[in-house]
């Protein structure tokens, strides 16, 4: 603790979001700083580097209007923390954790550093409990489990919003215990809750999500940073959201589903800030530490051994130029436990949700399905559907060369199967399917082609 007020008017340079302040006594790395603008606004900032008594400060807001003479900075002696309380539930905040819904700020029960703390790997419980999203192609073939991080890889113009909305509306947890199929729905009790972080959304996208959130009877906490709001807040909002998620999960024992959209905006903000700091750019100009930075978000998903509650994450990534090897989806894929990939081709065919099953994968699915989790034949059905659909897709290339007439009866059947699989299993215009309905749909399809064995 410092015993005197730490206010300085000794700024020597301003460049973008960065300020140099001279003659500072004992600043701390990561310390929150308040910047007083000439027109008496107060901006949040943070200590980035210290060299002797010179301190480099990064401002989390637009810095236009700052000057050297009349701007002052106050050091607060604390790191950036999130206010936490159950009263956050049902509220919408901006990227700086200010209420955006017209109601007053809540009274925090506690404060927690927004960067969080790494979970001790030996304290983690491995994710095994099935989450029913109500979407067949996810539940059946790319099953999501509690504590998993499973991103949606989308392309510009594909309905990733609608896919996310479908999950938001329909997700349920099914108690994993043998026999007992206790259901918690989003509406039911407050054990299952959605934390939603929107980064760099357009007004149009925001109004779409706003409607979805308003329709949800369930608990939610939303952080919304609009496209015209400060870029720095895009880096803060997910950290606030995850601090909230961890608090609800591990202090209050809830199962939390965190949806972050769109991580591409996050990464672009990261690049912008890194460039302003004059750091050495890596691939495509993104900073070399982007892997670790993304991991500091994604790895906050998980469960703790012997404790209630879980944080499950469903981030949306829009692949620039539809390129899955672009650093953003690439690094994401290296950290998350699988990916749900949307396909332009299926979208053009009018299939919703347009999930391409072949590159999609849930890495934690194996432990979360089968007897005691979903249904005994789940693994069998999903393996067969995948296998024959992959075969059908392969044959489509041959068909393009020799034409359908030049193919064997067997191959034609496979082509028909692939078509029907897309139209009847993947395709799901409205409404949810329970896991039982999903598996039945798949089984019927296999049976129709005598492939169920």
């Amino acid at each position, binding site marked *: 603790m410092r015993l005197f007020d730490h206010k300085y008017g000794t700024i020597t340079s301003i460049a973008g979001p960065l300020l140099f302040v001279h003659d500072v006594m004992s600043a701390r790395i*990561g310390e929150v700083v308040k910047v007083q603008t000439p027109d008496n606004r107060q901006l949040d900032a943070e200590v980035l580097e210290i*060299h002797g008594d010179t301190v480099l400060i990064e401002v989390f807001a637009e810095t236009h209007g700052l000057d050297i003479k009349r701007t002052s900075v106050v050091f607060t002696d604390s790191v950036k923390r999130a206010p936490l309380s159950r009263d956050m539930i049902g509220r919408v905040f901006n990227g700086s954790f200010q209420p955006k819904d017209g109601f007053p700020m809540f009274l925090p029960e506690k404060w927690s550093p927004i960067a969080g703390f790494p979970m001790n790997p030996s304290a983690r419980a491995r994710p095994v409990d099935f989450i029913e999203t109500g979407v067949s192609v996810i539940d059946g073939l790319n099953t999501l489990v509690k504590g998993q991080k499973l991103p949606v890889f989308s392309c510009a113009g594909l309905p990733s919003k609608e896919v996310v909305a479908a999950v938001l509306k329909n997700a349920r947890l099914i108690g994993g215990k043998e026999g007992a199929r206790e259901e918690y729905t989003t509406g039911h009790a407050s054990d299952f809750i959605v934390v939603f972080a929107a980064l760099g959304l357009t007004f149009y996208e925001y109004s779409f999500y706003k409607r979805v959130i308003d329709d949800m009877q369930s608990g939610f906490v939303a952080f919304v940073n609009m496209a015209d709001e400060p870029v720095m807040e895009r880096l803060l909002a997910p950290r606030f959201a995850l601090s909230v998620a961890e608090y609800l999960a591990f202090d209050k024992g809830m199962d939390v589903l965190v949806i972050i959209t769109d991580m591409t905006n996050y990464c672009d903000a990261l690049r912008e800030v890194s460039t302003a700091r004059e750091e050495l750019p890596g691939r495509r100009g993104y900073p070399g530490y982007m892997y670790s930075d993304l991991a500091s978000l994604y790895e906050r998903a998980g469960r703790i051994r012997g404790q209630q509650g879980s944080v499950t994450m469903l981030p949306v990534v829009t692949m620039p130029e539809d390129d899955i090897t672009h650093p953003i989806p690439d690094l994401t894929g290296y950290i998350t436990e699988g990916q749900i990939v949307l396909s332009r081709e299926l979208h053009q065919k009018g299939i919703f949700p347009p999930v391409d099953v072949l590159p999609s994968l849930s890495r934690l699915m194996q432990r979360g399905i089968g007897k005691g989790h979903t249904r005994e034949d789940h693994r069998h059905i999903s393996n067969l559907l995948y296998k024959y659909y992959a075969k059908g897709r392969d044959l489509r290339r041959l068909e393009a060369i020799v034409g359908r007439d030049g193919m064997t009866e067997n191959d034609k059947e496979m082509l028909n199967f692939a078509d029907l699989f897309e139209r009847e299993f993947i395709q799901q215009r409205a409404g949810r399917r329970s896991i039982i309905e999903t598996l039945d749909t798949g089984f019927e399809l296999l049976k129709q082609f005598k492939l169920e064995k």
Partner: protein
Amino acid sequence: MTGKITGISGPTVITDIKGLKLYERVFVGNAMLTGEVVRIEKDRSVVQVYEDTQGLAIDEPVQSTGMPLTVRLGPGLLSGIFDGLQRPLQRLKEESGPFIRGVKELSALDISGKWIFHAVRKKGEQVSTGEIIGYVKEGPFEHYISCPADVKGKIAWIAESEIHLDRPIGVMEDGSEIPGFYDWPVRVPLPYKRKYSPTEPLVTGQRSIDFLFTIAKGGTAIMPGGFGTGKTILDQSIAKFADIDIVVYAGCGERGNEMAELIEEFEMLADPWTKRTLMERTILCVNTSNMPVAAREASIYTAVTMAEYYRDMGLHVLFLADSISRWAEALREISSSLEELPGEEGYPTYLASRLSGFLERAGVVETNSGKTGSLSMILSVSPPGGDFTEPVTQSCLRTSGAFLMLDTSLAHRRHFPAINWFQSYSLYGAELLEHHAEKFMPEWEHALSTCKEILQKEEELREVAEIVGVEGLQDADRLLMHTAEMIRMKFLCQNAYTDDAFSPPARTLSIIKEILDFYKTADEKLKQGVQLDEILNEKKNK
């Protein structure tokens, strides 16, 4: 000596202490964060801090230790789970809960622990550096205690039966002591007498490796592959099934959930060779991607030093790291915060020499006590965008003995393990052939070349088949395609979630033999004029 912090930038701290040595360990700030001196200038030194520097302030104290960064070596490391600086994670959890908040100095070994000591040398006998004076039983292993460096002479006293690690186990006539444990600098390989070239295969239980790309005990292998190509599953399968005494697994900058899974499985499953719990012969060194980046750089050295320590007991040790790319990225971050001139892709120019220096710590050795031990290394590599031309893959390739290329397109087709059979290679193959022929199957070499030939021909035929359809091929070619498919699906594929996850040598050989026998007989029948469909039908009905 103590001094002050005069500058902080990310994980690097500037201090004014004088008289520091390069790579000396220092304690930084009131929180006593661990750091290493990485650069010394006239009146200031740069320290790389291995923990989060949030909250660190100018003028806080910095303390020198006079020692480099070390690991603690002694009985009780087995079944331990450590972080990159060898802090025991389970004890850390008991003391500070499920999240790693501030850091505590915790000894890797429980030094107050009791062990039963069996002396092999007696009072009055002459011993010198490296000689074994006795052992304790650590699980199934005889854990040898030997005479440390700079100690030699006649034994004045030696412990019998119960010992405590924090008290000497032997005292020499000149008063010098033989301790139960010691600290060793992580960046210095443990000494040995001489190195041999590897002659024995390391059975991994993975058919494609054991048959096509055999790895040697004491050898090195890298497995690069894009995300989701099965590096971790392969690493973990090998860690479970390899015929090896001890496994040291370094989870380097990867996922926490994977480690949770590994820990849970290793506590439950048994080693197929010894039937003992896997955890009993395993050491985990974990620095997940969200733990401090700088400690990730140190973690592989921490892990490999523990591996060498057990090698020196005359054991076969396997070191696995998932993934060495995350280590290289940590190196890059450190280098860039030191403002060093970057080389390719921003990596420091010493990346390649560091990597080859590290890989050279593998090998078969005669230990200082005259035993033979080996340290094998398998490192996974995560090339950005799955592009193998990047610096880390290329640097590893120069020194590693085997290259197991994991192929994204095979993984998408769910062909696992997705080891590409055209691009991968093992330099040990030729030398181990003799051993194979002797121990397993005389016609090994022939089987291997037939198998490779069939896969090669399939590739050529596939292009033709794409155009004319499989039906348009001649019977002999169709048979070859059919056989190749059998090799791929029944032999090379191995589902990690079924009983087939582990394939002992006998099983591996019987499968390939069966397939090749079928091919031979069918080929002869074709030549006698039997129709292919008839042969295939007959096989189906069998």
